[in-house]
């Protein structure tokens, strides 16, 4: 068993609840956690493993702030049970930059285009954009807007987000 994330603090429950042992592969590292079966992948990341880069917005599949990759495909961590992710490769915003800290092309483009204001939706936007480009759905501004529509930005940074995704798509090409 690999040591949990240094920030890991197990949640405190007032009552004893049945827990399962869940093994997760996150950003290439193996984690084992004891959690109730109802724990979502989002809560496992944030509350059990201290990986708080993935954000909780609506917690109901409507905002996209919790977007992560499962086996390379973008999904919503709030509507995925941690147990469902067993045996699959989970990639979060923490796993995107290179080992030496070199930013992913999408991260760099978001900085360059100032594609955020408060920043809360940004990890989800970036994870979604990486997949959007990989899927081949970033061919035009209209296509980017359509295929990024699952990520809401309440600050309204959309024009800069589209510009960042367009630039990153070109860079990746």
């Amino acid at each position: 068993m690999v040591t949990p994330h240094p920030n890991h603090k197990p949640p405190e429950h007032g009552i004893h609840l049945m827990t399962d042992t869940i093994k997760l592969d996150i950003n290439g590292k193996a984690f084992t956690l004891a959690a109730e079966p109802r724990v979502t992948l989002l809560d496992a990341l944030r509350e059990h493993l201290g990986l708080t880069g993935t954000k909780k917005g609506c917690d109901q599949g409507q905002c996209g702030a919790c977007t992560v990759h499962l086996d390379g495909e973008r999904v919503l961590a709030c509507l995925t049970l941690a147990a469902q992710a067993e045996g699959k490769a989970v990639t979060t915003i923490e796993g995107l930059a290179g080992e030496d800290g070199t930013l992913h092309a999408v991260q760099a483009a978001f900085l360059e285009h100032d594609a955020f204001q408060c920043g809360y939706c940004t990890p989800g936007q970036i994870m979604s954009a990486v997949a959007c480009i990989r899927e081949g759905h970033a061919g035009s501004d209209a296509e980017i807007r359509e295929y990024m529509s699952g990520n809401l930005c309440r600050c309204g940074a959309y024009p800069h987000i589209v510009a960042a995704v367009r630039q990153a798509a070109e860079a990746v090409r």
Partner: protein
Amino acid sequence: MKPFTYSRAASLDESRTATTVAGAALLAGGTSLLDLAKCGVTEPEQVVDITRLDGLDTIQASSEGARFGALARMSRVAAHADVLANFPAVAQSLSLAASAQLRNMATLGGNLMQRTRCGYFRDPRAFPNCNKRNPGSGCAALGGVTRNHAVLGTSEACIASYPGDLATVLVAFDAVVHLGERAVPADDFFLLPGDTPDVEHPIQPGEVITAISIPGSAAAKRSTYLKVRDRQSYEFAAASAAVGLELEADGRTIRDLRVALGGVASKPWRSRAVEAELIGKSLTEEAVCAASWRAVDGAVPHGDNAYKIELAPRVVARAILSLGGLA
């Protein structure tokens, strides 16, 4: 969410057995089940994950017909070249539904089982009276905010609208829902609310959706799904139309026409009146616009949703005309 146990079905039979257990729920993509569990609409005690069953995610399509395994994911079917070529309305209805993330998660079988988006249904704490959730308790939507409620197929017990896109296409093209051995026409898979809005499907304990099939047709090959909504993307339909068109060799007489409506009825709504009105006629804007009003035969408004009665025929007309190259 209330606590539950989690297990993985090792076989299709195991998942069938799970449906006979009180308090057990099958988990596929989870996009509906976990959402409704968080809302408190559904409170499963046992969640049985069926996504690791083999062989249920196949996608086949040709001019002869299509067959999709129940666990085929929306994004995969939407992008499949043979589906795009032979059943464009199916691919479009999937691409226009939800978001890219949700389409990667959600399965076709789960999509058929999605529940209404009625805000009263989804909020048990604020609105205990809902005949769909709690039979006999009344309907909070009546006299409430009804912009997204149905104008067709409603009853005194329930005016919730069916929110799905795919099923609208399925009923237009005579698809079949396979529950193992038993095959149910898609139109019969969705029940009118009547006095029992809590009963939405004819599926019985011990039955699990295994596949969806659609017969091939010239109309399915020349088909479209037009979805009109309050925002451009990532939104349920205010009104939608699944339409398929086949013309005679003269290039203007309508040989076959399929029309179904979404977003306006209590179930995916086949509009045979529009089809009958136009088959055998010449495809003209005048004929199509006149016939499209038959799409809302029998419609009943409930306050805020009256706009749908004018919107739906226009969506139908635009879909038919665009297929015919007239819009």
